[in-house]
C-alpha cells in the first residue's frame, strides 16, 4: 500500500495531488457535521427575525446565503456527501455488472457472447435520459434510484472494455498453460483472467466517478435529481443558482466550481493510474 503511494508521488506528482484532493473530499463528506459552519437546512434569521436572503459572501457567511437564507458553504460541504455516495455507489454497481457481463461474454464467446453483446448494443442505443426518466417515474425520485440509473448507464460500456481485455488475455501463453495443467474454467477466469482485467477496470472506474457526479448534477438540473431539501451540488446550481444568476451569480458559481474541481481531481487521478498501470504509455 505505502509502496504504491510512494510510486504515485514519485512518478506522477499531479496524480498524487489529485489523490490528496479526493482523500480531502472524502474527509469533508465524512466530517460534514464538524466542518460545516452552520446547519445546511436552517433558515438564518436577522435581528428582526427575517431570513437573511441572498447575502453576498462575507465574513459571517463565507460563500453567502441562498434565497431561503441558508448558508451556501454548509450546503456545499453537505452536498459533497451526496456527490460522493452517488459517485462511488453507482460506479461500484456499474463496474461489477459490467465486469461480470464482460468476463462471461469474452471468456465463453459463442452464442452466449452474441446474446449478451446484442443486449449491450440495445442498452447502448437507448438514450440515458429515457432510462433515467423511466426508472425515476416507475420507482420514484430518490438517491437510491439515481445510483441505480447511473450504474445502469455505466455497465454496458464497462462490459465492452472488460470483454475486449479478456479476449486479448485469452491469447496469452499463461492461459494455455493453465488449460494444459487441467485448471477448471472458473479457476482460470477468477485466478488468471480477472486479476489482469483489474487495471483497465480501475482506470474506467476513476474516470466514471467524475462522470457519475456530473450526471447526478445534470439529472438535478432537469428536475430529476435528489429531491429537495437535501443539499446537492447539481440541485443548488440548477435551482436557486440558475434562477438568481443575474442578481447573485455566486449561488451558481460555487457549486459549479465544487463539481468541476472534484471531477478534475478524479480525471487527473484516472490519467495518472492509467499511465502507471499501462506500461506502453510510460514516458521514455
Amino acid at each position: 500500500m505505502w509502496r504504491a503511494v510512494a510510486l504515485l508521488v514519485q512518478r506522477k506528482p499531479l496524480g498524487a495531488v489529485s489523490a490528496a484532493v479526493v482523500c480531502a473530499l472524502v474527509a469533508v463528506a465524512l466530517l460534514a457535521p464538524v466542518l460545516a459552519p452552520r446547519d445546511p437546512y436552517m433558515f438564518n434569521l436577522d435581528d428582526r427575525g427575517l431570513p437573511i436572503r441572498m447575502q453576498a459572501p462575507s465574513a459571517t457567511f463565507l460563500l453567502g446565503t441562498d434565497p431561503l437564507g441558508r448558508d451556501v458553504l454548509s450546503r456545499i460541504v453537505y452536498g459533497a456527501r451526496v456527490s460522493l455516495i452517488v459517485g462511488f455507489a453507482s460506479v461500484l454497481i456499474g463496474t461489477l455488472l459490467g465486469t461480470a457481463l464482460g468476463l462471461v461474454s469474452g471468456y465463453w464467446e459463442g452464442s452466449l457472447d452474441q446474446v449478451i453483446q446484442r443486449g449491450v448494443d440495445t442498452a447502448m442505443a437507448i438514450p440515458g435520459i429515457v432510462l433515467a426518466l423511466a426508472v425515476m417515474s416507475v420507482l420514484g425520485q430518490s438517491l437510491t434510484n439515481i445510483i441505480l440509473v447511473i450504474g445502469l448507464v455505466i455497465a454496458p460500456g464497462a462490459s465492452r472494455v472488460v470483454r475486449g481485455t479478456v479476449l486479448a488475455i485469452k491469447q496469452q501463453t499463461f492461459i494455455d498453460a493453465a488449460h494444459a495443467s487441467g485448471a477448471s474454467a472458473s479457476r482460470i477466469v477468477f485466478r488468471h483472467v480477472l486479476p489482469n482485467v483489474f487495471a483497465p477496470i480501475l482506470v474506467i472506474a476513476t474516470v466514471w466517478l467524475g462522470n457519475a457526479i456530473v450526471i447526478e448534477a445534470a439529472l438535478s438540473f432537469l428536475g430529476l435529481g435528489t429531491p429537495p431539501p437535501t443539499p446537492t451540488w447539481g440541485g443548488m446550481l440548477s435551482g436557486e443558482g440558475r434562477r438568481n444568476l443575474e442578481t447573485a451569480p455566486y449561488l451558481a458559481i460555487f457549486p459549479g466550481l465544487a463539481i468541476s474541481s472534484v471531477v478534475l481531481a478524479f480525471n487527473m487521478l484516472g490519467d495518472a493510474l492509467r499511465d502507471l498501470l499501462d506500461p506502453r504509455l510510460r514516458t521514455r
Partner: protein
Amino acid sequence: MRTYIARRVVQGLLVLWLVSFAVFSLVRILPGDAVLMQLDAAAAPTPEQLARARQELGLDRPFLEQYRTWMSGVAHGDLGRSLITRRPVTQELAKRISLTSHLAVMSMIVALLIALPIGVLAAVRQDTPADYVGRLGAILGLSLPDFWLATVVITFLAIWFHWIPPIGFAPIWQDPARNLSQLLIPAVIIGARLAAVSMRMTRSSLLEVLRQDYVVTARAKGARERTVIVRHALKNAFIPVVTIIGQQFSVLLGGTVIVEFIFLQPGVGSLLLDAVLLRDYTIIQGAVLFFAVVIVAMNLLVDLSYSWLDPRIRYR
C-alpha cells in the same frame, strides 16, 4: 467484405428490433398514460370518459396487438401519430432533427478543429510545456459540466453585453447569420467537451504509433519528421480517434438536451424529454428508434472506416 457488411446489417436490424420492443414495453411500465396526463385532474373525469379517451387512442387494445400495429407502420415508414398533438411522429421528428443535426455537426467541427492540432502537437512534443498546456486544457474541458458553462456564459452575455441568442431556429442555408448567432455558442460549449476527449485519444494513440518499428524505419530512411508524422503515423493513429468520434456523435444527438434547454432551442432531445413527461408513447418510441438507427449506422461506418485507415484490417 460484402458478407461482413451483410452480417453487420442483419445484426443491426436485430438490435433495432430489440430496441423497439424494449422501448415499447418500457414506456408502458411508466405510471400514468397520455390520457391521464392530458385530462385535467381537477375536472375529475369519470371512468367512462377515461375509457373512451383510451379507446380513441387505441390504448385499450392488448399489448402485443398494439406493438404489431406500430411495427407494421414502422416497416412502411409510418411512426404513428403523437398521442398529444395528433400530428404524424415523422413530421414532429423532422422539425427537430434539423436543429439537432445542425448543432451536432457544428459541435463536432468545433471539437475536431481544437482536438486534432492540439492532440498531434502534444504527442510530437511529449513532456514539453506545449504538451502540458494541451493536456491541462483537455482535462479542464472534461471537468467543466457543459450545463454549468452554458448557464454562466449565457448569463454573462446578457448582463455584460445585453445580448441573448435569438429564439426560433433557422437552417444555415436559409439564414446563415441567424443560424450562427443561435448555434455558435452552444456548439462551442458542447464542442469544447468533445474536443477534450478526442484530443486525449489523438495524443495517446499517436504516441503509441510513433514508437512502432515502421516509424523508426521511416526515420532511419531519412524521411523528414513532418512526412513521418503526416504520411506514416497519423493515419494509423486515427483508428481509436475515429471510434471515439463515432461514439461521441451518437451521444451528441441525444445528449444536447440540457444545452437545448438552456438556449431554448427545441431539438430531438427536448422533444423526447417533453414526450416522456407527457407519456406521449408514439413520440418516445419514434425518437428512441431514430437515435438507435443513428447509433447502429454510425458504429457500422466507424468499423468500415478501419480497413480504409489501415489496409492490414480485412473483414471476412
